[in-house]
């Protein structure tokens, strides 16, 4: 591999380096080069001389690996829900293949739009391309209902990348989770494409596969839709189905089991904070228990945690380190806040059955405040210590 590297360094790199013919496109070259090879930049003369091998590429890769169980299950489930809704028998692979064909165009559109913008902005700023969007690019289609049109996804992605991320300075500087901003954008701009009974299960074919003549759309109520309408009955609802994920919903959000497998990968690898996940589930459980005790026909605690996007938000969205609280104490408070708010919004505002998304965005907004208070406690301790000495 050294030969390839030497060839690139000798013949290709000079074109993109300063003074080269394609200097303007250095960001593109660097992105592909660092995709191929670990950067060979070494430590400066003064400073730490060795470095841990983890870098942002590795972190994002781990996050995507953690998403795979939920994605694979989601593909199968989309197919399964489709064939069930149109009353057709279908095998495991047919279901999976249908879901794959439904999901793939969404991912491709998201990546092309999102990465396209990121690359252009990086080239404009003459900076390295940050990897953040590689995760957002999967997260955005993962939280979309099956029937969301591609053009709206493209629009939402562009909006999120530009207005939720780049205007703040790019990956690492954003206040709100870009993937959720994309979803929230669609939720408010195109509500009919994002919620209701018609969007979560696709009636027509996926790229010509599946579907039956004459059926374009099917109407299937999601469990949370039923909660909002007051038709939900906790006694007859099968919680196991919700846990396994065999219910209608957005792509990767339905299977709590698959999401928990992802959570294990994230926690073991240390990529996402277990504090946030744990406190988020704890907060959600607490609020659910309170509501279950006082409201009629409210879902049980287990049902609440398995339904809708709660688990997905707790594991993959709330834990985004850039937009979450950054201090350890702050993470406990932040996670708990998100968990409580997700259930509150879901139960008390019937217009927004998807409470988890809004709760995380709300959490993002207050995270700096939480950190401020936590850090202030440290400051107060230091000031007090100094005052004690001064008075002695």
């Amino acid at each position, binding site marked *: 591999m050294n030969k390839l590297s030497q060839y690139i360094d000798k013949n290709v790199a000079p074109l993109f380096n300063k003074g080269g013919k394609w200097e303007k496109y250095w960001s593109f070259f660097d992105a592909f080069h*660092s995709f191929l090879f670990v*950067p060979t930049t*070494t430590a400066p003369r*003064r400073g730490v001389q060795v470095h841990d091998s983890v870098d*942002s590429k590795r972190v994002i890769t781990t996050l995507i690996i953690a998403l795979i169980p939920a994605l694979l299950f989601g593909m199968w489930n989309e197919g399964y829900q489709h064939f069930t809704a149109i009353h057709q028998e279908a095998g495991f692979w047919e279901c999976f293949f249908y879901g794959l064909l439904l999901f793939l165009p969404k991912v491709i559109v998201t990546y092309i739009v999102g990465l396209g913008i990121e690359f252009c902005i990086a080239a404009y700023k003459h900076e*390295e391309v940050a990897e953040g969007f590689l995760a957002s690019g999967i997260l955005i289609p993962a939280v979309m209902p099956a029937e969301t049109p591609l053009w709206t996804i493209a629009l939402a992605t562009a909006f999120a990348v530009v207005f939720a991320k780049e205007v703040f300075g790019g990956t690492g500087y954003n206040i709100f989770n870009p993937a959720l901003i994309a979803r929230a954008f669609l939720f408010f701009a195109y509500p009919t494409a994002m919620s209701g009974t018609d969007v979560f299960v696709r009636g027509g074919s996926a790229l010509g596969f599946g579907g039956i003549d004459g059926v374009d759309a099917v109407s299937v109520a999601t469990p949370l839709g039923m909660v909002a309408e007051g038709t939900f009955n906790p006694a007859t609802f099968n919680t196991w189905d919700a846990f396994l994920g065999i219910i209608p919903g957005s792509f990767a959000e339905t299977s709590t089991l698959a999401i928990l497998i992802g959570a294990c990968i994230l926690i073991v690898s240390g990529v996402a904070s277990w504090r946030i996940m744990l406190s988020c589930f704890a907060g959600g459980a607490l609020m659910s228990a309170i509501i279950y005790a006082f409201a009629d026909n409210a879902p049980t605690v287990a049902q609440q945690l398995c339904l809708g996007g709660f688990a997905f938000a707790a594991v993959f969205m709330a834990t985004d380190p850039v937009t979450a609280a950054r*201090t350890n104490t702050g993470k406990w408070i932040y996670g708990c806040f998100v968990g409580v708010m997700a259930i509150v919004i879901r139960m008390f505002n019937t217009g927004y059955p998807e409470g988890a998304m809004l709760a995380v965005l709300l959490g993002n907004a207050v995270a700096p405040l939480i950190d401020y208070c936590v*850090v202030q406690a440290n*400051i107060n301790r*230091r000031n007090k210590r100094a005052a004690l000495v001064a008075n002695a």
Partner: protein
Amino acid sequence: MASLIKLKKGLNIALEGVPQQNMASVKEDTSWTFVPDDFNGFTPKILVRADEPVAAGQPIVCDKLHPEIQIVSPVSGTLVAVNRGERRKVLSVVVKKDGKCTSTSLPAIDAQKASAEEVRKAMLERGVWPFLVQRPYCTIADPTILPRDIFVTLLDTAPLAPSFEMIVKGQEAALQAGITALSKLTSGKVYVGVAARTQLNLKDCEIYEFEGAHPAGNVGVQINHIKPINKGEKVWTATAQDVIVIGRVLAGNLDFSRVITIAGSEILSPAYAKVLPGSSIESIVAGKVKQAEYLQRYINGNVLTGENAGREGTLGAQAQTVTVIPDGSDNAELFGWATPGITRYSVSRSSLSAFLPKKLWTLDARLKGGRRALIASGDWEKVFPMDIYPEHLFKAALAFDIDKMEELGIYEVAPEDFALCEFVDASKTPVMQVIADALKRLKKEME
């Protein structure tokens, strides 16, 4: 019975090339080099002209601001060169040894009986004063003040650093004399940090035992746990070898040599050696480095706080280690982000190597990633055992927000305390440099 402080946070990087407990012989260098940058905050004024003879113990450089702070030549010979860089900054002063060892006569000073003034004067005149570091700002100690306390760490937990046992062997009297001398210079106490279960009989000081991974040996961490620095307070710090040299020189023996480790994965048989700081790295490692077709990196100091000095570089005045590792700039590693990572060392468990049985690692000097904005959170805290939020302090330092830095504890830290943060950081942030720059600028603003 010394009180024991247990630290849970920190990290020992298991590096290949651990020194054996034996002394290697090192060829004596033919010249001695003084590098002003070895002492933070020292502005050199040259006292001897080029080509003039120099006697051992003769002052050759002094500080511009405090002329009483002198650097003396530990060897006799001729001052052959004053190397200057940009804006005539003095980079190094070189004395060629004549091998005769003519020295100015030095009376022994009994630290026990001497007054504070006598100790101070002798330390300044004999060139051991610069070993004292002052906090805040991690700078050379100001001889005109009376520090609140003096902290001495007898424990170096940095990767491949020499053990206290090897350093102190045969130097117990000098260590005690040095501590007694320091105890005269403060209105408070001399606090000594040692490893847990160290058998040590020291007087004129208060001993604290520390247990835990690096940076438990960092004096800043020890201060934070013993008696933190408040705004307006000043303390001095020193390491075991600083104190031993101070004790020895006060006793009239102008011996500045130190016990260092010659270590790292590129060293054939890593070991200890007694050498004179200011010797060239070439003279220290000659014949000890593996033959290799790849590039190697010669570090003056340890891998965390050392300097890439090159083979032609100089051993720093207070360095404890010479480390040689592969450089890595000629290493094309394919798809680093996607491999299982069995051969990649990482504290984060995103590489499978974290699940393999413990072994020693060969690390090269690559950053192994591109620089990004701070993304991951909580990693720094795991290796920062102080009651300070490292990330928030770092951000305040980056923005140079003086009030915020003060509130978050800038007066308690030195760049070295952030070394592990820089090591574990996935965004490859130059943390130490930012803190060092902020401290330097802050000192200018505040004094």
